[in-house]
């Protein structure tokens, strides 16, 4: 039996762990309650691995394409049962990351783990419990959904009855039940997308890696996918979701990573991100049409940085402090202006996204 003191990576508390060489011991940090696994090397000295229930773990991942750095030393993790939103403009490196996580690309350097298994070294084991949808995959258009899905079911060692039952189940989820035995070649783009999603969830995976899953879907289809993601989250499925649709990400994700130019720009929970957004705009509506004199009076209020009309509302820019907002309202009424509505603009991810990205990027 040997003892080893290790440092908790979150709270830096020193924790002592005991075990035999080659043995893996579960440890709980007394301070922050994070669980970890410790494997003692056979040489009795070093700790081999430390993991904290991260289902996906990416360490210093870099990918070069003919001299172009598509991914630049990125690191992040996704915890069990979490939905992580992966957001960024076109060319940010989202799909490259997903392809590295699903063994479609080989990293230039760095590591990607799923369930503590190195995807690059042991893809067959790492991808066993993963369902994925990457870019817009081609579909075998001369087959029927049943024929295509049956093959993927067999790859996951599902038996015949299980395959038949699950095919019906997933096709019902993606609203393709009536098309089970019709040729895929006659499907619309949206239907093909739904079928690809059905393939991703066929084997009830523990981890879902989805790259822009709602592309090509109508609003109803988007809602269905959103509901499906929430359903899987309630079942404890870990979801890694790349998307352009910030509202979708806000609706479904626990945490967001913003990626740009192959680098992680920032990350945090939805709440943390929204708290970081500085609200510096007030939307005001007046009862009467403003005269030139009224506008002059408003512009002369020292707390107001700028004042302009937009979509029937007047937008006031200020320093973002609540007390300043209150002062502005007081001064407007003191000027004799009849205010119908007065509200600070709500924080949204789009504003945050625009504020952290360099220039105009493709956000929907």
């Amino acid at each position, binding site marked *: 039996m040997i003892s080893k003191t290790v440092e908790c990576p979150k709270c830096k508390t020193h924790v002592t762990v005991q075990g035999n060489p080659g043995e893996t011991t579960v440890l709980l940090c007394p301070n922050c309650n994070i669980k970890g696994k410790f494997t003692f090397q056979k040489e009795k000295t070093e700790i081999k691995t430390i993991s904290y229930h991260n289902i996906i773990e990416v360490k210093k991942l870099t990918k070069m394409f003919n001299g172009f750095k598509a991914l630049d030393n990125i690191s992040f993790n996704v915890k069990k049962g979490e939905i992580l939103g992966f957001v960024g403009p076109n060319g940010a490196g989202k799909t490259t990351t997903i392809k590295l996580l699903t063994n*479609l690309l080989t990293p230039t350097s760095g590591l990607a783990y799923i369930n503590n298994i190195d995807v690059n070294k042991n*893809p*067959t*084991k790492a991808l*066993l419990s*993963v369902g994925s949808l990457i870019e*817009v995959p081609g579909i075998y258009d*001369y*087959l029927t959904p049943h024929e295509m899905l049956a093959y993927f079911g067999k790859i996951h060692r599902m038996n015949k009855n299980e395959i038949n039952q699950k095919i019906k189940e997933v096709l019902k989820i993606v609203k393709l039940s009536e098309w089970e035995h019709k040729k895929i070649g006659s499907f619309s783009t949206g239907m093909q997308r739904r079928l690809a999603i059905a393939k991703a969830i066929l084997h009830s995976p523990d981890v879902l890696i989805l790259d822009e899953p709602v592309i090509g879907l109508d609003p109803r289809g988007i809602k269905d996918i959103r509901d499906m993601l929430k359903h899987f989250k309630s079942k404890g499925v870990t979801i890694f979701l790349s998307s352009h649709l910030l509202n979708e990400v806000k609706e479904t994700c626990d945490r967001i990573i913003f990626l740009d130019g192959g680098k992680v720009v920032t990350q945090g929970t939805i709440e943390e991100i929204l708290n970081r957004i500085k609200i510096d705009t007030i939307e005001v509506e007046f009862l009467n049409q403003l005269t030139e004199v009224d506008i002059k009076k408003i512009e002369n209020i020292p707390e107001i940085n700028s004042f302009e009309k937009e979509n029937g509302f007047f937008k006031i820019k200020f320093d973002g402090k609540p007390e300043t907002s209150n002062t502005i309202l007081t001064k407007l009424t003191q000027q004799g202006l009849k205010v119908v509505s007065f509200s600070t603009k709500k924080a949204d991810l789009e504003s945050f996204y625009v504020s952290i990205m360099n220039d105009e990027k493709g956000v929907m």
Partner: protein
Amino acid sequence: MDVNRYIPGVDDFKNMYLTIKFEMLKHIKRKRILVTLILAILIPLIFFIVPPLLGQGYADTANGFAASNLGFVNLLIILSGAIFTGDSISGEFENKTGLLLFSTPQRKSSIFTGKYIASVIATWLFVSLYYLITSMEIASIYGASGISVEIAQSFLLALLYSTSVVSIVFFFSSIMKRTITSTLVGFFLLLMILPIITAVFTVAEVDPWLIVTHNEGLITDVLGTVNGGGFGPGQGFNLTIFKPDLWSGISVMSAYTVILFLTGIVMADRRNME
């Protein structure tokens, strides 16, 4: 499937088997199989039906009839090889179906080997059908005793040649981006380029034993009815015809089969799904 239940090797073979079945299903579902089927039935039937219609008899011997009939099996082999193998790997990359397939928990080499075997099986099936029809024709013209050991030897050589053809096209499919390119390069290499090189070698009086299409001649040579070869420079006629040697030919076809299959697997395995 539970991670701990995954058994390397055993599961790789199982995945390979599943890929073979899936590829066979894809071959059956595609209309291109009809083209091959029509050729495999039509060519031997022409040799059976046309001579009586033109008022001509069949060859004197069963092997003679087989030799003229099987002289065209080469075309079927090249066509089948190109059709069933040309898109086996390049198609997954070009059509992006690889995004579905390669992200599954199976070794890429299992997938590619399964695809290769499925192409070999499909090609063998049509070659077998061609020989079956030819044998039935021989039985109806010359009696069952007309189906000789030499025809069986010819059949085995045709299967070996088919496998080497599949390996060649498989190699091109593993390195080329577009399906149409890999299919056409394989097709024209076997049908035109290699035979032209053989002809050039022959004119230069160099034995083209290393060229796989030259050894394809063994398929009919083993029937023992061809008298060509061996007549050297004579007065006013100085063309030398090189007959492929049986064992050398088998070795060359086997070498093409193994080397190009393995190279194809390595090249395909290294390709990224960009």
